[in-house]
């Protein structure tokens, strides 16, 4: 290897790492400011009291696509119908399921096909019918089921749901997500307190693997006790409590999660809805919303709230993780190809000048740089070029920084009252943090690179099935019954998009 290249590479890596660490520190400070502000001004019980009886509380629709979910659909819909909010509806989109999903819904909620005047505001695969209940149960009256032809992606199904929502705001989620009882109050509140138009609100999400869930409600959040979900739980906490919270402070949010995102219906429709061809549809959606707002010269806000509103089931093994991360990697590259004109473009304000350059340099290029790092270490090892006197100290510095960051996240989690019931549960986070750089991170680098390569060679992408365990729920009127139901599958799984990895 020529000497000039070695010198250049050394300095490039040093500056890159120093800049990355500096950005982490800046984000931690910004996030702390945001957490403190939230804690000073936000008093949840007071907010719920005020909103519950007010005629000014905005209506919210929940859009949840479902595909082959017969094993869990009834419990999950019951869970969505039992949220606490004065004015909300639930729109389930049956995306051409091949199993008995629709039949079960019809039987359980006494649904009949209604002649709904469906207007296709966003283009989707044809809608076969809209179903509503004949029951006198006022809770069931909140439910609308849209039956459509399979569109192959979650985006298409979500768009069909958006076409039918009747409220000013909607929450896009997955039918198997566990939503906190008061989640809708939490996400609706920022739209009411801001003087600027809030086009989207993102709430914290965590892994439901290992949690105590009964009647579709989270009884006790617990950290997952299996490696892959545990690493991912830590990753989510880091992303939501530090990364997104910091970017929200400067109105530069990069993404609103596909698992639980709150949007302004009108702006989503004007921006053209979700892109069915995108592998990072949630990130793409927000980019198009921001593009619309900036191009039309309107002021906007995208807000992140620290409270956990949703728990989702993460990949349980390396195979599923590989599929998920490859898709995220591919989605990220695809995103930058599609929205390249927004990068370093002042028209798109903080999003164009801060967010996208940050993701490009520290998110998209990171796997490439890390991969080069691995190769150069191997080469230096073989050629005897490693300075063993200093390498352990550099390693120790980076390792201690990672541990400190984890402890900051735990502190933020406790500070935001999101904490686990048993504080000893955080031992699992610490354990994950110790093992993550060795066990989990290299895997993610490899999967992301595979995603890039697949996109560049134009390989056909299959969404694939994600095996979900689900949460069995008791028959109404009986006690408890919790446990796992094997085999529930979702063809268009609700994994986060590539942008979730930011600031990790």
């Amino acid at each position, binding site marked *: 290897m020529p000497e000039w290249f070695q010198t250049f590479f050394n300095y490039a890596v040093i500056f890159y790492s120093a800049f990355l660490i500096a950005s982490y520190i800046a984000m931690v400070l910004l996030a702390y400011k945001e957490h403190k502000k939230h804690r000073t001004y936000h008093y949840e019980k007071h907010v719920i009291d005020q909103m519950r009886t007010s005629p000014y509380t905005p209506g919210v629709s929940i859009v949840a696509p479902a595909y082959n979910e017969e094993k869990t659909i009834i419990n999950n819909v019951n869970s969505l119908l039992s949220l606490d909010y004065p004015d909300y509806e639930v729109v389930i989109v049956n995306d051409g399921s091949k199993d008995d999903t629709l039949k079960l819904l019809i039987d359980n909620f006494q649904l009949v096909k209604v002649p709904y005047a469906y207007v296709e505001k966003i283009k989707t695969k044809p809608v076969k019918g809209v179903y509503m209940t004949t029951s006198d149960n006022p809770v069931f009256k909140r439910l609308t089921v849209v039956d459509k032809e399979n569109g192959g992606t979650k985006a298409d199904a979500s768009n069909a749901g958006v076409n039918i929502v009747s409220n000013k705001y909607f929450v896009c989620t997955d039918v198997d997500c566990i939503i906190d009882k008061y989640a809708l109050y939490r996400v609706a509140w920022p739209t009411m307190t801001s003087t600027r138009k809030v086009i989207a609100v993102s709430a914290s999400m965590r892994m439901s693997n290992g949690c105590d869930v009964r009647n579709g409600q989270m009884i006790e959040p617990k950290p997952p006790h299996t490696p892959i979900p545990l690493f991912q739980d830590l990753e989510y906490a880091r992303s939501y409590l530090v990364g997104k919270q910091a970017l929200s402070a400067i109105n530069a949010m990069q993404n609103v999660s596909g698992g639980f995102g709150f949007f302004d219906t009108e702006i989503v429709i004007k921006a053209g809805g979700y892109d069915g061809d995108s592998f990072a549809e949630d990130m793409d959606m927000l980019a198009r919303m921001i593009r619309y707002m900036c191009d039309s010269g309107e002021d906007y806000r995208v807000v992140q709230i620290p409270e956990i509103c949703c728990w989702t089931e993460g990949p349980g093994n390396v195979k599923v993780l590989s599929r998920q991360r490859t898709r995220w990697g591919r989605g990220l590259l695809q995103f930058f190809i599609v929205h390249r004109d927004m990068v370093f473009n002042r028209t798109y304000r903080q999003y164009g000048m801060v967010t996208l350059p940050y993701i490009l340099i520290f998110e998209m290029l990171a796997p490439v740089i890390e991969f080069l790092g691995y190769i150069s270490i191997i080469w230096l090892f073989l050629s005897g070029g490693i300075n063993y006197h200093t390498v352990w*100290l550099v390693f120790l510095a980076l390792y201690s920084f990672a541990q400190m960051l984890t402890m900051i996240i735990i502190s933020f989690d406790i500070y935001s009252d999101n904490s686990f019931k048993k504080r000893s549960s955080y031992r699992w986070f610490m354990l994950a943090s110790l093992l993550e750089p060795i066990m989990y991170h290299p895997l993610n680098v490899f999967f992301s690179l595979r995603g890039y390569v697949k996109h560049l060679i134009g390989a056909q992408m299959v969404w694939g099935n994600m095996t979900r365990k689900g949460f069995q729920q008791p028959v109404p009127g009986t006690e408890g019954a919790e446990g796992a139901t094997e085999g529930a599958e979702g063809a268009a799984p609700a994994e986060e998009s590539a942008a979730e990895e930011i600031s990790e």
Partner: protein
Amino acid sequence: MEYYFLEGIEYWKYYIMLLYYRFIELSPEIQVVSIFTTICVITFIFLVIGNIHHNNKKVRRNRGIQRLDEKYKAKIIEIAQRTDLMDLNDITEELDIPKNYRMKEKTTSRIIPILITVHRTYKDKIFRPNWERILQAFKIPPYFEMLMRSRNMGKRIKALMQIADMDADLKEAVASRYLFAKDKKMRMNARLHVARFGTSYPFKALEEDANLEFTEEMMVKYHNILVYRNANNLSMPNLIRWCNRTPVNEELRIFAVNEIRLFKRYDDCPELLEMLRNCRDEGFACALIKALGELEYIPAEGEFRHRYANASFAERQALADALGAINSGNPEVVNYLVYDYRESTDYISKMKALKVLYNYGRRGKDAFNMLKAEAGDEEKPLFTHIENKLLDSRKYA
């Protein structure tokens, strides 16, 4: 060779100097990395200790609340629901609070969540004079007064919210010094407190603020305050004056119109109609139209029809809804709605016109059937949608 044994400060000094000289011998890169690692490790230890301390504090507090809950909650509920007026001494005796007992600040802060829970749960059953005396027995008003003097703004804001949550009638003076505070949230909460408990004219600060930003949060909170004042026969603001005299803030004017509608102030309708005649702003016009419609003010029908030509999409939809709400049976309204249906280019406006026609008596239904017979294949689903009873209650947007 002579050996010296270092003792006390000399011993520490030696090792610190040794560390220092070793450190300055290192290359600058190693020095930076060493400092960085040390900072990380110290921060880590500091955070661990902080979290443990925070955790223990929280556990102790929860345990304390639990103890107080077991001791007082049942008695508080019982006394608060009694309809016979009780003396403060009797309440103190029943609650088992010793005479001249100086309640600790910590205890008072722990009793507050219990009082808020009781108030929230038994809001409608609480006998207010007894409730006030319960609060006095626990020395809640002086505690809040003390919090309001605190330098910590977060504590002050939280105190004001808690006062509202437990309906602790505290003098408006405690918040009046913050009515024009620099911090927006502090200012807003102080004004809300004064608006809730004030006696003379508590909305003065709101009216006089030229830079007022009236958010939906404030709409929610002021509405709840007006409901509270109305229920307790306290003085209400002159809402029509807010509509007329506050051109600085359009949102406040819209709020005032909405409140006139929600409190069903029929007497204000002529003035609202006059405002509608001179109104050019879309949001304000929509609020006026909705208010006049829901208050069923029949003389407004003529203005509604007259307004159509220059109205925006949103206004036209509001006009159709308002005419449906008045439902006077006027044949001219039927003609208007048929015209509206034919002129509209979007499905939502068409649906609104059709829905009003369908529910507008026999004449309306005849017109609906006539339009149905005329409709092409594209418009037919709108009619079947309107006719379906299950879809009747569902909003369409």
